[in-house]
């Protein structure tokens, strides 16, 4: 009797487990397929966009009227950005696929630059035509390679999940057709080297990273330690560790970490080797109850900058984040605000002391500039603004525009409805360089229900 019951129970148990296992298996498969489908879609999208891209570049070349080029170039720009986003969805992050992405991005930059230009007044130069032609042939190569991969994927029924697995288990030797295919694409692009995009082309990734405006001699590790000790202000009973930058850095710096032996408070900072300038500084400390106002804190920040030899700065923005005040300063040259020269200072609102600062942008870009006298008057510039905007403030400024160039502008702060806008009108050409809608406070969504 007992035995019979036991058998029944066990049999039910086995059947139940089998059923449950089967359910799990099905669910897992469903999810796998779903993930696989996402990859497949991104991949096929990518090849499709590359096809289109190639065709479109071809059309622009064939166009006779230079003025009708603009929409076509804008289309090229759109396609590169879509292709780029497709690449981002594929599990290739650990594959060397950078060159291809850079190539896409360069085509995008080039087409954007030329598309937003008034081609009636300033038609494509011969050199730019040559660049376009070169891009046309190069995109053909990539298209070919990608199509090959696509063909194999379809024919052999290859799955991206296998790529995932292969990359995850890091079986370098594993023969994975997709990985190999993408490596071929990458090699092809590498072969192009630096495409010549013409003299006026600013590669957006190539900012000055070398602190070329800094003056001074190389400092030693000891000097770096001394500088950091001064900034950290954690007293004399401290452990100091100085490390030199790795080989991959674009510039020489020392990383210094200062730790108070008693309180264990720690400050980290990077200092340029050239001249010993502080690039950034962060003090790790629990900030207690707020005791001082944001305004006092901003005065402290100003004093701190003065004491450390930063001069000619305007307070540009201030904001309170809980118990911390964050202030952005920009330099001011004869009444013109230089926005690329930015320094940020964070002040703890419990003791009013500097908790962090970052001078990287400032050190990289600050120098005495030749700011040309504006070619148009303030009133002329103001007339270019949307009449709906009520202008409240104006000044002159140097900003970096969408094409990564410094331009001299008139800056207008204005309101429309509840919103505040910052509008920059080029002081040379009267072109509207940038319109920013300034952030309003954001409601906290916690506890709304």
């Amino acid at each position: 009797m007992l035995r019979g019951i036991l058998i029944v129970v066990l049999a039910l148990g086995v059947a139940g487990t089998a059923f449950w296992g089967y359910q799990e298996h099905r669910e897992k498969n469903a999810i796998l397929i779903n993930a696989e489908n996402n990859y497949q879609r991104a991949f096929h999208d990518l090849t499709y966009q590359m096809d289109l891209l190639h065709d479109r570049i071809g059309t622009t070349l064939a166009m006779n009227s230079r003025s009708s080029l603009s929409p076509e170039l804008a289309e090229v720009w759109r396609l590169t950005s879509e292709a780029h986003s497709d690449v981002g969805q594929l599990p290739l992050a650990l594959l060397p696929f950078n060159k291809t992405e850079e190539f896409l991005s360069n085509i995008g930059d080039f087409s954007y630059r030329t598309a937003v230009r008034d081609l009636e007044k300033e038609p494509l130069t011969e050199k730019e035509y040559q660049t376009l032609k070169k891009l046309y042939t190069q995109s053909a190569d990539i298209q070919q390679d990608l199509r090959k991969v696509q063909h194999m994927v379809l024919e052999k029924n290859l799955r991206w999940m296998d790529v995932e697995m292969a990359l995850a288990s890091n079986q370098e030797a594993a023969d994975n057709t997709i990985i190999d295919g993408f490596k071929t694409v990458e090699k092809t692009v590498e072969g192009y080297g630096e495409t010549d995009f013409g003299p006026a082309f600013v590669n957006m990734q190539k900012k000055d990273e070398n602190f070329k405006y800094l003056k001074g001699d190389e400092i030693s590790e000891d000097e770096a330690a001394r500088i950091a000790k001064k900034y950290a202000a954690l007293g004399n009973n401290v452990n100091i560790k100085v490390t030199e930058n790795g080989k991959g850095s674009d510039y020489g710096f020392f990383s210094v970490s200062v730790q108070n032996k008693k309180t264990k408070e720690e400050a980290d900072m990077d200092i340029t080797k050239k001249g010993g300038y502080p690039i950034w500084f962060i003090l790790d400390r629990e900030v207690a109850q707020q005791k001082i106002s944001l305004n006092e804190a901003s005065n402290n920040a100003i004093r701190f900058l003065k004491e450390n030899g930063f001069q000619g700065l305007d307070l540009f923005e201030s904001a309170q984040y809980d118990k911390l005040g964050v202030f952005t300063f920009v330099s001011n040259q004869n009444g013109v605000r230089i926005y690329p020269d930015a320094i940020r200072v964070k002040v703890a609102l419990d003791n009013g002391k500097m908790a962090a600062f970052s001078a990287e942008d400032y050190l990289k870009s600050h120098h005495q500039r030749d700011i040309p006298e504006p070619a148009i008057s303030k009133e002329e510039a103001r007339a270019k603004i949307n009449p709906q905007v009520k202008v409240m403030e104006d000044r002159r400024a140097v900003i970096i525009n969408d094409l990564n160039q410094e331009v001299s502008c008139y800056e207008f702060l204005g309101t429309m409805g509840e919103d505040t806008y910052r509008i920059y009108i080029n002081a040379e050409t009267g072109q509207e360089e940038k319109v920013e809608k300034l952030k309003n406070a954001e409601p906290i969504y916690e506890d709304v229900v």
Partner: protein
Amino acid sequence: MKKNFLAAKVLLIISLCVLAIPMIGSVDKASAFSNQVIQHGAVGDDVIELQSRLQYLGFYNGKIDGVFGWGTYWALRNFQYEFGLPIDGLAGQETKNKLVKASQYNKQYVKEQINKGNKFTHYGGVNLEQQKKPQGGTAAPQQQEKPKQPTATNMPNGFSENDIQLMANAVYGEARGEPYTGQVAVAAVILNRVNSATFPNTVSGVIFEPRAFTAVADGQIWLTPNEKAKEAVLDAINGWDPTGSALYYFNPDTATSGWIWTRPQIKRIGKHIFCK
């Protein structure tokens, strides 16, 4: 003679005190504001009062949320202009005195509305009862009695609270055992990727790029981040980059990919090596 002088002195002091008491009293009553100079970007009770008073006079039409944003800034400047004060957009002592004199502030009413999450305004000359609207029909009784501070918060340009939350999740999942600088560094790498040509152009795109972050792959990203992680993200967004513009990082003890070792290394923070 000497005694007389002393008596006169005592009398003088007493009378001064008597005179001073009502003055102190009135000053105290009038300046509900604390002593701070309120400036753009500030948050807190003083800002709530500033906004309420400016609204009472009709200068401020926005929401009373306790964050000194652009709306408050222009309202304050208009007030300073109308009342013949120096127009600097700072609520200093003189401005606050003028404001207190010209307007009324029903602190209890404003606080109550904020705590209840009601929609309300604080215009002068209108019955306050008509200016509030409970949110969402039947107002559920609020159990908690901790005073809710501002109902809004400062956000850096170009980012939403949700972006920051997502990044804080990623930072916490990836680097919760790291020193604070290491957490800022991870957040900075995410932002460097957003700005880079070789990665997607959105925060979510970068974070959810397949196989980019282990914390995303194994689900650690959905742990609840602490305040530190969020602070690190804010620092990175506000311009701190301890990595020297790195695009990759890895933990040399657990890295599975051989390829990552071929990247040019910039520096090491905590357990992570940062590379280009």
